[in-house]
């Protein structure tokens, strides 16, 4: 097992700078998810750690060792690909044992290790099959088995669940989580699905346009997003943003929306300076309320989407369409004006 450290890592493809001087330390045994929108550089970063892509500048350390000049094999990493990348002409057993065979391990040892890994992943009955005879979930497990059997220092996952249907994805997510609890090897997991990242990882790295936006535990990212990008990226449904004007005195802040509505909150140490700001409110923090006060806003209901356990409402607030998750299942009518109350601690203020 080993930690991973990236120092001033940059990568350019021609004139396009994909990664911009990244610094990141991943502890030994930690499960870190790299999340970001398509094209943010997360897969490139993973490939650089794997040794499949060469960095333009910067240093990569695995287990304290400088590995920039080492081949993927010498780095002792294992990777699970989005497309599974199983060798189609080999059986499951041969796929899992391929690396061991190359490493010159004896046949009985290979068989024993493959068998042991297959038992962990419930693949024993599939060992003689070819990848084409397996379902998506089974292929995924074989891909993980192929990585696991090598006993690597670091596991790299490149969007491993994105080819699976929603139900299987949830199931495989649980299996990966269980696997990590059992095999506490350092894992770096790339995904564009924030739910996957939040549920699996000890820490999440949010990337955008080749720059790390924030690194933190799922709770930290949800509760204290560093900027509007992180706030909008984390959470489902996404956070609502309204342009507003902030004025503060010694102890309190006054947030005035574009339609003149006003919210009042305690002044925070790290809030943006007075002037134009973006006010962020999570849909699940907006509650329907009978009374209007300084912690509530009035809006018109434009759309109601019942999901069973909760209703998703589209409400126009200060001229902008916002989402409200109503767990109380209150009966509301289209076009009805409602009061939406929010705890001042759940207001997020970002510079514009």
């Amino acid at each position, binding site marked *: 097992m080993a930690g991973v450290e990236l120092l001033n890592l940059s990568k350019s493809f021609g004139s396009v700078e994909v990664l911009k001087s990244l610094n990141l330390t991943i502890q030994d045994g930690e499960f870190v998810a790299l999340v970001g929108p398509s094209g943010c550089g997360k897969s490139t970063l993973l*490939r650089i750690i*794997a*040794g*499949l892509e060469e960095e333009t500048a910067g240093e990569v350390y695995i287990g304290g060792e400088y590995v920039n000049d080492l*081949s*993927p*094999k010498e780095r002792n*990493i*294992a*990777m699970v*690909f*989005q*497309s599974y*990348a*199983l*060798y*189609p*002409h080999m059986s499951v057993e041969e796929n899992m044992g*391929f*690396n061991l065979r*190359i*490493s010159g391990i004896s046949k009985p040892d290979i068989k024993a290790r493959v068998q042991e890994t297959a038992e962990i992943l419930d693949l024993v009955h599939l060992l003689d099959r070819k990848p084409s005879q397996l379902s998506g979930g089974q292929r995924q497990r074989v891909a993980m088995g*192929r990585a696991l059997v090598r006993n690597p220092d670091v596991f790299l996952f490149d969007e491993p669940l994105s080819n699976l249907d929603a139900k299987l994805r949830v199931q495989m997510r649980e299996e990966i989580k269980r696997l990590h609890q059992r095999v506490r090897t350092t894992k770096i997991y790339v995904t564009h699905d924030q739910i996957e990242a939040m549920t699996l990882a000890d820490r999440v790295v949010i990337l955008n346009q080749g720059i790390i936006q924030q690194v933190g535990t799922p709770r930290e990212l949800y509760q204290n997003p560093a900027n509007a990008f992180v706030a909008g990226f984390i959470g489902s449904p996404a956070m609502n943003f309204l342009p507003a004007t902030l004025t503060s005195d010694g102890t309190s802040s006054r947030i005035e929306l574009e339609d003149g509505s006003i919210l009042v909150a305690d002044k925070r140490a790290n809030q943006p300076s007075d002037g134009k700001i973006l006010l962020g409110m999570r849909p699940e923090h907006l509650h329907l309320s009978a009374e209007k006060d300084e912690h509530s806003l009035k809006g018109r209901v434009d759309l109601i989407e019942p999901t069973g356990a909760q209703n998703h409402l589209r409400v126009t607030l200060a001229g902008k369409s916002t989402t409200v998750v109503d767990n109380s299942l209150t009966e509301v009518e289209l076009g009805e004006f409602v009061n939406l109350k929010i705890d001042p601690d759940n207001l997020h203020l970002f510079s514009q």
Partner: protein
Amino acid sequence: MKALMKRLPKISMHAFLIVSVLITIFPFVWVAMMGTHSRSEIFSSPPPFYFGSRLLENYEKLLDIMPFWLVLGNSLMVSIIGTAVTVLFCSMCAYGFFAYEFRGKNVVFGVMVASMMVPPVLTLIPFFLTVKFLGLLDTHAAIWLPLAANAMGIFLIRQYMVTSISRDLLDAAKVDGASDFRTYWTVVLPLIKPALATLGIVTFIALWNNFLLPLIVISSPDKYVLTLALRSLQSVANTPWGAVMLGTFLSMIPLLVAFLFFSKQMMAGLTAGAVKG
């Protein structure tokens, strides 16, 4: 009547196919029949369209006028070695174009593809001079070596690799610790069998039927290949056409065997990518 009308397209299609098959196999059957007749029977009018009784006689005459089995062996050797070497080197070149990024890759590939447009006859003199320079004149290598890495073969296999092999597989092999050659040999080659079979059969036929190159580079009769040897019989006085036809028919048999051997893979190669899989 209505049922007949409904089946008419199918009947027409079958009729068309049967006629096409007959036209295709007619020369082969005709050659086989002529191989069992004497010269005078062949030139009688109307010519005999049935199997005759001079098979053994023709066979003895064939061995009399040419060392048939030696020449057949030469042709087999040239075709088998040439096919194996061509398939190996073309696939290695194709792998280079597929798997690696290097400066000028597209230019080199473009020039290579463009070279297919040059009529082969134009290159005959340079070809002869090169073979002479290499000291390969009057050797079998002069027939198969120039084809060892040909543009058509490289292009065919490279295109197949592009459509059928995911780059993730190469990365997975790299992460697994496979060397470049091992990746090519263990991962890539088994996945391009249909393309290899297609190239194999095309190369085998080209080498087997090759007349022009052996004519230019081979001068010793003991190194003749079938095409040269059969052609040389035309200068024999009173050419024994029955024996020549028998020799021609026997020379087709290895091709039929090779086709039967490769045809399944070849069909897969020709139709690969035609349907979404």
